[in-house]
């Protein structure tokens, strides 16, 4: 609608449009081809490590559900990631609001430092300190404890991104509301929250998918098979020969992917899924 003046339907315009759709098609192929495996192999009689047109069967689902850890691990994932996301989003929203509205000296530098430190803590090298610390705190084998550690790693980036959203809410709204005698709580719940809601929803999805894919932390901190999330259990899918169990893996991958997709669709439908912001130079 913006690339052309409505009057120009001439040959140049046609070529432009064709080029445009070819480009979109190429990009779609690039993004779609790797996903063929997830669409075909769960339903194939002889699933392999390569995508091919399936000989349709639901037999793999029966095989996969025979694994006693499958359903509990998805439930554990939901508990673990739900808790981690909840903690992250609530704390990040509160902190981002304050950081956006109250000028604290060295605020930006502090945020950058935390952002950088979060990269150290999510790396392999920090696993020994984190394990020993959780042991001292008595939080080994605790789903809630593990979710707090996950939140610790997610918070800086979540605050950083949310602050951009809140920065985008004009201060004049709050100022005029206060002129009319609204309390800070009313300002927050009636003005800031509604405007920032799409941002919060987006960061919520972001936090959830980060936690959902994390293997190393839950692997080390949750020793009990009955408490381990799907991210850990998917690595145990081996057959007696020690190779990847190809009858279970594609189905498990599919089931393991569904919750994040559903969450995204829900959020997208309700609030729209979008990012905001930019550092003000």
């Amino acid at each position, binding site marked *: *609608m913006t690339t052309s003046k409505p009057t120009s339907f001439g040959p140049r315009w046609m070529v432009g449009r064709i080029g445009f759709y070819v480009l*979109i098609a190429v990009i779609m192929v690039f993004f*779609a081809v*790797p*996903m063929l495996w997830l669409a075909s192999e769960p339903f194939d009689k002889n699933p392999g490590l390569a995508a091919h047109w399936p000989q349709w069967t639901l037999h793999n689902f029966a095989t996969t559900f025979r694994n006693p850890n499958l359903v509990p691990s998805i439930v554990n994932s939901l508990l673990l990631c739900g808790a981690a996301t909840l903690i992250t989003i609530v704390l990040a929203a509160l902190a981002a609001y304050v950081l956006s509205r109250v000028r604290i000296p060295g605020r930006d530098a502090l945020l950058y430092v935390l952002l950088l430190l979060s990269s150290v803590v999510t790396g392999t*090298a*920090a696993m020994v*300190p984190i394990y020993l610390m959780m042991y001292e705190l008595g939080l080994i084998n605790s789903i809630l404890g593990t979710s707090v550690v996950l939140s610790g790693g997610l918070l800086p980036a979540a605050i950083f991104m949310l602050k951009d959203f809140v920065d985008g809410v004009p201060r004049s709204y709050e100022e005029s509301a206060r002129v009319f005698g609204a309390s*800070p709580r009313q300002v927050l719940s009636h003005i800031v929250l509604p405007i920032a809601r799409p941002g919060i929803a987006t960061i919520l999805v972001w936090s959830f998918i980060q936690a959902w894919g994390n293997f190393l932390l839950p692997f080390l901190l949750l020793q009990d098979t009955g408490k381990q999330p799907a991210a850990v259990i998917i690595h145990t899918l081996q057959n007696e020969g020690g190779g990847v169990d190809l009858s279970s893996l594609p189905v498990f991958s599919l089931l393991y992917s569904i919750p994040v997709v559903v969450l995204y669709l829900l959020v997208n439908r309700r609030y729209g899924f979008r990012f905001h912001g930019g550092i003000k*130079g």
Partner: protein
Amino acid sequence: MRRVDVAGLGVPRALAFIAPAIIIIAVFLVFPALWTIYIGSTNFELTGPNSINPQFVGFGNITNAITDPQFRGSLVLTVVYVAGSAVIGQNLLGFLLAWLMRSTPKLLRSIVQGLILLAWILPGTVVAFLWFALLDRNSGTLNALLGNHSTAWLIQYPMLSLIFFNTWRGTAFSMMLYGSALSTVPPTQLEIARLSGARGWRLLRDVVLPHIRGHVLTNTLLITLWTANDFSPYLLTAGGPNHASEVLPVFIYDQALNSSQFGYASAISVLLLVVNLVIALLYLRLLRRRG
């Protein structure tokens, strides 16, 4: 806490809002990070004699790393990976998509965006299997499409494969961020510029970029940090063949787990942090100069 306090929070309430986040971050992020930095100054190993009595070695690990050709190689690969897949790949493709989506019919737009977002939200382990299936030498989808059965992509072109992989994986974020950025460019300005004959690159440079410079910076900064610390190359190539794709997070993992050298691995983590810091400062400086 001075200057404006538009929300009328007051100091006590502001502190109460921010304290929980600060406490969690202090205990579960800053503390282990400092501990890691401390371990980086010792010769601590997970097992063996140095696990019982680790010695303080100060900057010994750092100087070892700087003279270690394997570390230097990893550093170069990390720069290549970040530049190729994040700064160029995700950034440009994300921007291109955001730009194209503006004039795409709604249904098609939802499908394309959904597909790209799917690549971003699928769990890492699943994504790794997807790419194995794509790039496998004997039965991979790519070789089947190309009708060739001799190219082992992950072995013959490991870095190129990883760069394509990470562009595929992460473009969604840039696409969305630029999508909202482009909506801040006033349509009237675009129209005026167009009427005065500005097209293509000139239109971008003179009208669009000045509006979204902040977004470009936020985006580049975040995806650079995420990519520099990205561990997924391990799932695809495990750093191979013969270290040809061993980016720093994989190098750290290798040192920590396979060689049990936690002191050395921690020191490298610190160096990675420094690299990240330098990049962040560079971006901020660029922004200030242009601004």
